[in-house]
């Protein structure tokens, strides 16, 4: 009796084996940037937290961070280089600091965070743990997500594939879902949403687009007309599959309809590649 061989990896499906395996890790010659959403519109505010203790156990190791803020153009609208800070310190940067530097009242765009050790070369995890926090003055937004390693030869938090998904989106009387996608590419990127009910029925959005080097938030029910009706008979829950022409870090936000408060904010998972953290 023969046994089917495991599916072979291809360029499109680099991690098609039937069991999770850790890819061989190679040290990178460079510290890798992570990408995040950054917003301040007087109500919602953002904060960057760079946490060296996520990557070192040496409290005296010295680090520095470079922040590049993008808002559509290929070049950043602002670059900030930090003073050196010690391994047991947390480098924090508030969106109010950016508004002050720009001399503007609001900002929404992307931030590229490149933190590096000043004492040691990058190792198997060539990036520094960086978290982006979001809060609204009226309590309507509260969230914290890790920065995404967008490219590089490592296994953790590296986006791969043009398909990503989130099991557990909600469109019912109590809650509503939106999707935040970050287009770090210097060109517009097409996307499409496929919404599956738990029993497997499917509705898709029309083709949508995100401007170059910009974030965009999509309301699920507006993007996929009929979404609420599709899920109505099954608790209002479903699974969302997202296709994009180029890979995009993706996040799902879930808000209470009665209070307007977003309490759920985390990243999607890509179909291909090892699971990201």
């Amino acid at each position, binding site marked *: *009796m*023969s*046994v*089917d061989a495991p*599916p072979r990896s291809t360029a*499109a*499906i680099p991690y*098609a*084996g*039937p*069991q*999770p395996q850790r890819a061989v890790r190679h040290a990178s010659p460079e510290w890798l940037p992570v990408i995040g959403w950054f917003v301040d519109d007087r109500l919602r505010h953002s904060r960057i*937290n760079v*946490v060296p*203790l*996520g990557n*070192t156990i040496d409290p005296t190791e010295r680090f520095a961070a470079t922040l590049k803020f993008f808002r559509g153009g290929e070049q950043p609208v602002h670059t900030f280089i930090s003073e050196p800070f010690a391994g*047991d310190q*947390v480098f*924090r940067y508030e969106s109010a600091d950016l508004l002050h530097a720009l001399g503007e009242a609001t900002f929404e765009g992307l931030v590229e965070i490149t933190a590096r050790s000043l004492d040691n070369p990058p190792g*198997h*995890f060539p990036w520094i*743990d960086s*978290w982006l*926090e979001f809060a609204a003055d009226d*309590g309507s937004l*509260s*969230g*914290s997500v890790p920065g995404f390693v967008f490219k590089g030869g490592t296994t*953790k938090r590296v986006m791969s594939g043009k*398909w*990503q*998904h*989130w*099991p*557990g989106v*909600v469109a019912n009387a109590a*809650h509503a879902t939106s999707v935040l996608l970050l287009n770090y590419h210097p060109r517009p990127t097409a996307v499409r949403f496929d919404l*599956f009910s*738990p029993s*497997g029925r*499917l509705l898709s959005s029309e083709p949508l687009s995100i401007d170059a080097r910009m974030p965009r938030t999509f309301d699920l029910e507006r993007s996929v007309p009929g979404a609420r009706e599709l899920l109505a008979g*099954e608790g209002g*829950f*479903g*699974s969302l*599959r997202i296709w994009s022409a180029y890979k995009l870090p993706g996040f*799902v936000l*879930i808000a*209470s309809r009665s209070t307007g*408060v977003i*309490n*759920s904010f*985390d990243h999607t*998972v*890509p*179909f*291909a590649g090892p*699971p990201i*953290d």
Partner: protein
Amino acid sequence: MAIGLGRAVLGRYPRLRSTWPLQQASAWRQRQSWRAHPRRMASWYRDAADLRTRLFVSNLEMPEAPRLCQPVGVMVRLYDQDGRPEVARRFAIPRHASLVLELRDLLPAARRGNVESGQVAIDFEGPQLGSARAYLHWYNERSLTSSHEKFGLTIPAVGGYWTVPNVQDSDAYRVHLAVTNLDARAYTSDITLKDSEGHARTTSVQLPPNGSRFLALSALFQDLSGFLDHQPGVLYFGNNQQPAMYYYFVQNERLGTWRVQHL
């Protein structure tokens, strides 16, 4: 010998591989292999008045590789906070379908509403892509917060410690730690809290194998608010060797809401 003989016959008559009986046998062997070597996932759950837990596992097709999407089995196991097994049940997920499971429905009636902390383990018995991951809702009447399982990526920490980057203590921001031991040995860790000026306080946590805890930070550290002095602090787990899962929940007492973040 029989296997060798069978392979020799198939080598000589390869068209036999596409016959119905051999395809069925092959599929059966594949299912047995997936059941024996599932993708193991796990997370933390609670079933109490302030938070309930809902589990999602989907089985969606990636259009470039449709044959990887096949009906799968999912084994769900619940453990109490001391790591004792409570429930085990297998579910089938057809192609393109999703399992939506209220974990309280698995519990005995006497346990419903009375689980402060527990581990949920999920075995995905099918072909796996990076997307074969479970997500969870933790919810009450005022809020719903969601994140993914954290079993396979917890060893080791990324060269450092598992760190909560922003710790505060106010009625709008109370931090609770949800920790689950994945090791076969007891798990012990220091927990260090630093204020914005670097002053440190330390306590510790101990968990039996498969055990879990839901720890209010204000119960771990006396006068937490005074120590932090309205500035964000940082917290890290000193044990960066043993496998464990870490989430933190921020409770907004004014709004009656919770939000979760994995480490």
